[in-house]
């Protein structure tokens, strides 16, 4: 192997390395893209599942939904008064959480979108 051939081979190896790195980056990007796509589709699946569950809960048929079955069993066991209390507490908690979120967002908007204000508004 002549020196030129060695240089060429080195050059080829360099090019090949560059190509490999580029391929690695592209493959990584595509894999990440695919993963995010999977996440997105999973979210959509969850939405569909949630739709089915909402429809079942509204119609009173709980076939095929363990979550609804367990909630129904809880309602059966504790009775309506306790169930209403529990439900009310959950609603209050959710409403309170949403209120706090909106409050923080308002605080952030009011104080500007800097990292420090965000951190301070949440962890003051």
């Amino acid at each position, binding site marked *: 192997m002549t020196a030129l051939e060695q240089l060429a081979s080195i050059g080829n190896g360099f090019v090949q390395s560059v190509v490999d790195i580029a391929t690695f980056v592209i493959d990584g990007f595509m894999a990440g893209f*695919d993963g995010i796509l999977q996440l*997105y589709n999973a979210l959509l699946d969850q939405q569909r599942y949630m739709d089915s569950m909402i429809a079942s809960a*509204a119609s009173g048929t709980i076939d095929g939904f363990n979550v609804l079955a367990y*909630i129904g069993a809880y309602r059966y066991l504790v*009775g309506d008064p306790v169930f209403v209390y529990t439900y009310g*507490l959950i609603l209050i908690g959710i409403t309170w959480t949403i209120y706090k979120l909106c409050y923080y967002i308002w605080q952030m908007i009011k104080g500007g979108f800097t990292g420090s204000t965000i951190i301070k508004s949440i962890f003051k």
Partner: protein
Amino acid sequence: MGIFQKMKNLRIYNPEFPNNRRNTIIYRVLFLIMAVVMVIRGCTWTAHAAAPLLTPEQEAAIQEIANNVNAAKTGQVIQFPGSKMTGTESNSWMKNIGTSAMSGLGALITAGQMASRVVMIHDAAEIARWQVQKASYDRYVEQFGENGEISQALMQQYGLANIPQDYPQTMYTKVTDFINDTVWIAGQITGFQMYQDPFEKFLRGEDEDIDLPIKVDTGAGPVLATQNQKADVRNWFQSNFRIQDGQYQLREQMWHEYYGKYINVWKTYDTIEDLIAAVPEAYRYAFQHLLGMSMESTVASEAFKKFLLNEYTPSTNEITYSDYIQWNDYPSIDETYDSNIQYQFQLTQRPYQALWKIKSTGVIYWSASSSLSGIQVTGSSIYEMGGSSTLTLTYNTSTQTWGNLYQGGVYAGGSLSGPNYEYIQTTHGFYDTNKAETVEANATNEELTYVPPKIEQYQPKISDASGNTTEARQYDPETETIKPITIDETSINLNPENDGWILPNPPELPSYIPATLTDPLTYTDPTAAPKEEPDPLTQDETNKGLLTRLGEIVAGIAGLPGAIVGALTQGLPGIDPAPLPEPSPLPEPSPVPPVPTGGGQPPPGGLPVVMTPSISNLFMLFWLILLAVMYLFIKALVFVGSIFAIPATTAIFNEYVMMGITFTRNQTIPGMGITIQGLLSWLGAFLITFAIYKALNKKVGRLDV
């Protein structure tokens, strides 16, 4: 100064309630609770105001009921349900029938038909009114259910203000009682007038043209037996009674262990009372009311013995009936609708008398006659207001025979009219069985043709603990199959003195066993009624309804954002990754433009959009994920709102767990009148309330600096 500042100042100057942070929080909590209550009440009121109170069908039914009730009250319109006749035509029709009867045409009508018309004529107007009421009630139940109620305001709106609120239930009871009583009387008249010997007709199976009521103790009053039911009763008695060696025997079916099959056993009873007690109750009722006499007297009669011994020959002397009909409590015109006329009808023993007691606010013109020659009707024809009269019918027994009475019937009728009642026709028929000496000479003495009842196989059934019946089966070793058990139609004499049963000869009597003993009479054993387990979910329907409505409101409010977002986004598109390109040693010189190929409006949940990897698509993907998360969050809120609609269910428990839970929940605490379920439920509610109170108090106390 604003109102809030004024309130604040008021609190500042109240020394017992200083304006500190703790009190501020208390104010806020109270205000929040008040606001929630007001919102819920507002939503409820809005829902009430928006929802229609009545459907068009219900409104039409109410209007129809109002028309019928008002018409019945005034007596102006009488229309038979299902008839196309108008009220005037109905009245005219009734008049014609009455006139025909009075003019002698009634003699051409069979007594049975006449008798049925007697009642119809007699109370045609009243029956029509009641039937209108019943039709109204049926219409009401159709729209509002049996336990529905008409509000007082609605009743006033439709002119029903004077009708009590429990009108449907009350009306139904009255109508049912009246019609049943009327039908009962019709049957009595028919039976007494039509047949010199109903027993004979009964045995002949020739009683098709009568509908004798059977008073089965179902709580519904007398019911009419169909011909099939009567045939069942007749066949049952012919197949299951006999007299052997001068003793009554009743057939029973018993399982013979040795033969491995059911056999018929003729069981001997020492006394008639024991035998009667062994007869199924349904047949006891049927027999008693079909023959118009008690079971005891029937069984003890010679006719019945002869019947059982197949020695029966018809004779009119053997069975006697009540000497006269006495209706002191004959249904009177309901005072609610016409209080002008009250009457009683009473037939006494010879001389035949029809006593009419008439009260009227005006003059009533009254006449009576009979179509049968030899019958004399005496009595005044015009009565003053408030007067009463006695109408006497006599006939010459030397010229009239029972046969004539049988053919033509004896009836007398009258018509009365007055200023307060347009028309009423009263006619009654009767005869006296004490005239048996004249009857016998004309009675039919032809032999009864005994028609053996059909032989039917009896398929025994097995009932399990839960009341389910299945066919009894046994293993057949010859065919190695399981076959249904069939009754062997043989009889056996049960002799208690012998160890075994005497094997029978071929059956002496054909067997007939109804499929079920209670079928023929629609008699239902109250002890066999299925026990309905109390549903814990329906113990407080009012609360449940309110809570359900609250849940619907909450679900609706919670679902509003989701509905808005859903309408805006119309669903997010699903995305499929584009097929990865083949690895190439060199990067693509010109990458494919990252354009989604699905179009602008992909169907929600439909075919996914193919998205190729690119930086711009990645940005779009992040944006879609953000939207999807927000969408999912909103859907989660909607789901939380719909949680309240989830019914209490026991789907995750198997039957054994359910048995334990049900047993525990239904345990009643002695002396308190409350179940374990109720106690635990309200105890839990109290504990949670207390916990919330403590937590709130603790929180407020901590803030009180």
